[in-house]
């Protein structure tokens, strides 16, 4: 038994301050990403979520260059990017891809410049790795407070606008006819999305933030019938994947003879991907069982 325990948890896992910070930030970020992600997938704004990750990368690398913390850059650029996408026309279905693509292109250009300057001037070694692939193990304990505050802000925003947001997702005309401020609600959601993506950029990197945003949400939407069920499933999946990823990355130090830790982001994303594939198998099996009755009903009506 003890042998199994030490095989799963390599020495010092629970005592490590780095692990504590990583688990706290990872947990918060996973919950925020899962909740925001469910709405993102329902609204078909996954591309916008991905683009905001690239915008965050530009902000994070720019912030490092001028001596700010990456988190400040992630959040600042994300919010500016979300505002710009809204202005260009993200709220119209056909304008969405266009607005997102334009902002995304500009952001990647910015990242290219900032990361180049950052690495050539040598003030911030490893900046590229840190911004694009995350820094959950090197984050300072002080950052946890900021992450918790921003996470609470994003969740509170979503809770406030949840119902009109859902209504507008179904039909902007129904929502507008009922007097809901569709445009404002859409902008509010984009800002919450920007904050969520900024937080996951800090945890698993700007490039991979989409995985944590979309993966658990998409798996949950395949498995549950109700919104509360989908939110709970996405949160559990996201937190489990993140914590398991942290454990595996910690353990990986002891795996090979070279004593190199493998990147935590890789493990988290791999687990999420596997979960999504597994959810597809389960949903497919359930679909094969259910619609027989539904189809029979339909035939009866048509007959």
């Amino acid at each position: 038994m003890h042998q199994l325990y030490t095989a799963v948890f390599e020495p010092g896992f629970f005592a490590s301050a780095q692990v504590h910070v990583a688990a706290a930030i990872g947990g918060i970020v996973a919950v925020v990403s899962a909740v925001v992600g469910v709405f993102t997938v329902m609204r078909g704004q996954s591309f916008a979520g991905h683009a905001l990750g690239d915008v965050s990368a530009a902000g994070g690398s720019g912030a490092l260059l001028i001596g700010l913390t990456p988190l400040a850059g992630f959040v600042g650029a994300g919010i500016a990017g979300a505002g710009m996408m809204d202005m260009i026309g993200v709220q119209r279905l056909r304008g969405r891809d266009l607005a997102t693509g334009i902002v995304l292109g500009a952001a990647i250009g910015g990242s290219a410049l900032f990361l180049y300057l950052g690495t050539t001037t040598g003030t911030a070694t490893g900046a590229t790795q840190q911004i694009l692939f995350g820094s959950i193990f090197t984050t300072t304990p002080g950052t946890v407070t900021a992450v918790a505050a921003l996470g609470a802000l994003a969740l509170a925003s979503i809770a406030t606008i949840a119902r009109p947001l859902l209504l507008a997702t179904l039909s902007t005309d129904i929502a507008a006819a009922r007097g809901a401020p569709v445009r404002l609600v859409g902008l509010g959601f984009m800002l919450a999305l920007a904050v969520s993506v900024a937080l996951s950029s800090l945890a698993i990197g700007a490039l991979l933030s989409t995985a944590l945003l979309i993966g658990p949400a998409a798996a949950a939407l395949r498995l549950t019938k109700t919104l509360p069920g989908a939110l709970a499933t996405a949160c559990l999946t996201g937190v489990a994947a993140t914590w398991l990823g942290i454990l595996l990355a910690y353990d990986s130090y002891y795996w090979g003879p070279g004593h190199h830790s493998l990147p935590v982001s890789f493990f988290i994303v791999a687990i999420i991907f596997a979960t999504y594939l597994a959810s597809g198998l389960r949903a497919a099996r359930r679909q094969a069982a259910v619609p027989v009755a539904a189809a029979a009903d339909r035939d009866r009506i048509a007959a």
Partner: protein
Amino acid sequence: MTDHTRAAATPEILHVDQVGVTLAGRQVLDEVSFTVHAGEFTGLIGPNGAGKTTLLRVILGLQRPASGRVEILGRPRSPRHQPIGYVPQKVLLDPDMPMRARDLVALGLDGNRYGLRLPSKDRGEAVRAMLHAVDADRFADARVGNLSGGEQQRVLIAHALISRPRLLLLDEPLANLDLRSGQEVIALLARIACEQQIALLLSAHEMNPLLPVMDRVVYLAGGRAASGPTEQVVTGEVLSRLYGHHVDVLHVHGRILVVAGADAADEAAAAAGPVTGVG
């Protein structure tokens, strides 16, 4: 079928007065006027592109008219929430949407409000009763995205009705339904309009399925409208005036066919040049 005395006796819910709309420099609606009363089934009939959806959007306050006004319950419509239920033509009901039929109906109660709400017994009961009223109990717990077109239509009607509107607007509800489901939906709507004394305005490009239940018709063509009892409006004389060319109205086995008259066909043929073997 058509009862003139009742129309005069029941309260006036909607009054559209001389409404004109110009979109991108084109006059879409021109001095459109009509009235809808409580408990009445009014068909908004016209060919594709006649401005039916635009007119519904004006009534809902989603489109500002260039001229004229819309009164609801005797008062000019305000930007605030109106006692109007609305079933648009297209609603995105993805199979992935984590929403059961009963959730979508519950959203009709207070979907425009902020903050979270806890489930309550009263709400659950109201939703259950509404689902029963539209004969949707059977699939109350199914995902809306997995329902058939006719089933989705029922759920959307329940969603629109649960906030107890005085006026229900439906944009081409029959467009994507097979004949049988369409008839079921129409019968359901006629029953609800009568039972709950709701004024019902339903747009359609094909009027025949509505003939058994329609109390009044608003016929839209060429941006202009004529309204009244079906047999007074759907005549060759009135429709020719709307279309701006000669139109014949034929009654065949209880169905009404509106066909371009001989003059119009001749004019079209003349404009197109000599054609043989047409018609």
